[in-house]
């Protein structure tokens, strides 16, 4: 058992205006150590893009924030609440503040697009049909899917599924949204729609966003800061402009898609 798993869940004072804080987070799956002491913090309303080679633990890091994965050691603090060590049913207050778009959208196969998008509202106790319909229309129109609301996920393209997932993630106006590769599988125009929507969420509602992405164009448009995860540690953390200027060959090779020193 990790040293922190044994501690009782407790509130942690939000001392410095940070909405999310990761302190020395370590995680291993068997012999493979994926995260090797991650320290990271995000202010309210900030947009952070996480980049890095595939299989370096970007999604794992994101799942720590919403309590889908518990760290072996270290602390994950969201909205002043220590997430690690909480039991599943004790996560509800965190999950009312944070929503997530999964890499494969994770839509419910037995529900239509509109029902999928309405699901968080329904589960949080909203029963006013006209209010639910209004918010579903609003969310679907933000991702340009209004005329597909009656379809089932199996009848959607990959990009449409992803956009439905985004509509579901934004519908209940969470304080923070985690996007796991929102642009993958989208054409350039679809990708631009998503980028604009993320910016709009940030401007209108002050949403804190963490975006795992490989799309370097999106980073310039939406990120306040960029973190590069490499071999289990944060190899780079700074603004998009600093990322461009960074002389580190690993960073430069990654952002320009050169494979010669990837290993």
């Amino acid at each position: 058992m990790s040293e922190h798993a044994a501690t009782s869940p407790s509130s942690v004072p939000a001392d410095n205006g940070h909405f999310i804080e990761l302190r020395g987070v370590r995680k291993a799956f068997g012999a493979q150590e994926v995260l090797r002491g991650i320290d990271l913090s995000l202010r309210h309303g900030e947009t952070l893009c996480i980049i890095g080679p595939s299989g370096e633990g970007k999604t794992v890091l994101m799942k720590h924030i919403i309590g889908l994965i518990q760290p072996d050691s270290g602390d994950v603090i969201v909205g002043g609440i220590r997430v690690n060590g909480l039991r599943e049913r004790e996560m509800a207050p965190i999950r009312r503040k944070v929503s997530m778009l999964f890499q494969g959208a994770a839509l419910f196969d037995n529900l239509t697009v509109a029902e999928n998008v309405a699901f968080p509202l329904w589960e949080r106790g909203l029963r006013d049909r006209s209010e639910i319909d209004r918010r579903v229309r609003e969310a679907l129109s933000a991702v340009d899917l209004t005329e597909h609301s009656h379809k089932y996920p199996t009848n959607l393209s990959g990009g449409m599924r992803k956009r439905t997932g985004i509509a579901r993630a934004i519908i209940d106006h969470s304080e923070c949204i985690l996007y796991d590769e929102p642009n993958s599988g989208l054409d350039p125009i679809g990708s631009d729609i998503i980028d604009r929507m993320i910016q709009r969420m940030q401007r209108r509602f002050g949403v804190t966003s963490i975006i795992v992405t490989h799309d370097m164009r999106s980073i310039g448009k939406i990120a306040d800061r960029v973190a590069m995860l490499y071999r289990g540690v944060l190899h780079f953390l700074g603004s998009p402009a600093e990322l461009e200027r960074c002389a580190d060959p690993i960073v430069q090779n990654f952002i320009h898609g050169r494979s010669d020193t990837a290993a």
Partner: protein
Amino acid sequence: MVAWWGFLILMPQIGNPLALPGRVMLHFLVYLGQLAALCRELWTALCSGVWRLRLVAQQIVAIGYGSQGVVIVTGAFTGAVFTFQTYAKFKDFGVETTVGAVVSVALCRELGPVLAGLMVAGRVGAAMAADIGTMKVTEQVDALRVMGVHPVDYLVLPRFLAMMISMPFLVAESISFGLAASYAVSTLGYEMPSAWYVTHMLEHTNMQDLSIGMIKGFVFGIIITLISCHQGLMAENGAVGVGAGTTRAVVISSLVMLIVNFFLSVLLNYIFPIGTA
């Protein structure tokens, strides 16, 4: 020599043979622990009072209504063949008129609930494990968790409640159609007077026999739901994992049901002895 070479080849795969019993026991205890944790979460969900009745109704249609065909056919042909086989032997002893009584008690106490349970395990248990397992490997279960919905509340509780409601009815159907088929074989096939069959059957079958069948159906429903949902929730490694979990769900729930049936029969026969009204 061949055995020795076989041992050397398999050794790396099976590990130290001396450690095998320990490993098996460890796996068994872990499995029991996971089932116990699932029971605790199910109890918490049950006590929360949020039962999602629309989902329960959907599951009743899928489990109860959808399983009627297989349960009726199984019950009917079991009753028919049981009558067909026992009639000849009973005739040797001159007690062929008691076939109705024997078939009735056997169907109520054992064959009805066990065969209905096995058919439901095959049909419904497999579907539960496959549905939940597919949701697990496609991150739909994680999506539920992210939205603050406990997977046991949303996926297991409605299936559990639907199974509790459906199983006794399915067992009753299995028994009824088994008896109807037995009656048909006796009276039409062997030309036994209808009154003999019915009188002996009613004389020797009582509410206790029927209660045993219902209680067993209820318990088997719990076993099938817990084991199948657990396999679904534990599924990993994509489609292969879902397939393996589905197979395990059917095999384990069928075996556990047969084992529990023995001990349940001993207990229930102690509470409701055969032949007492």
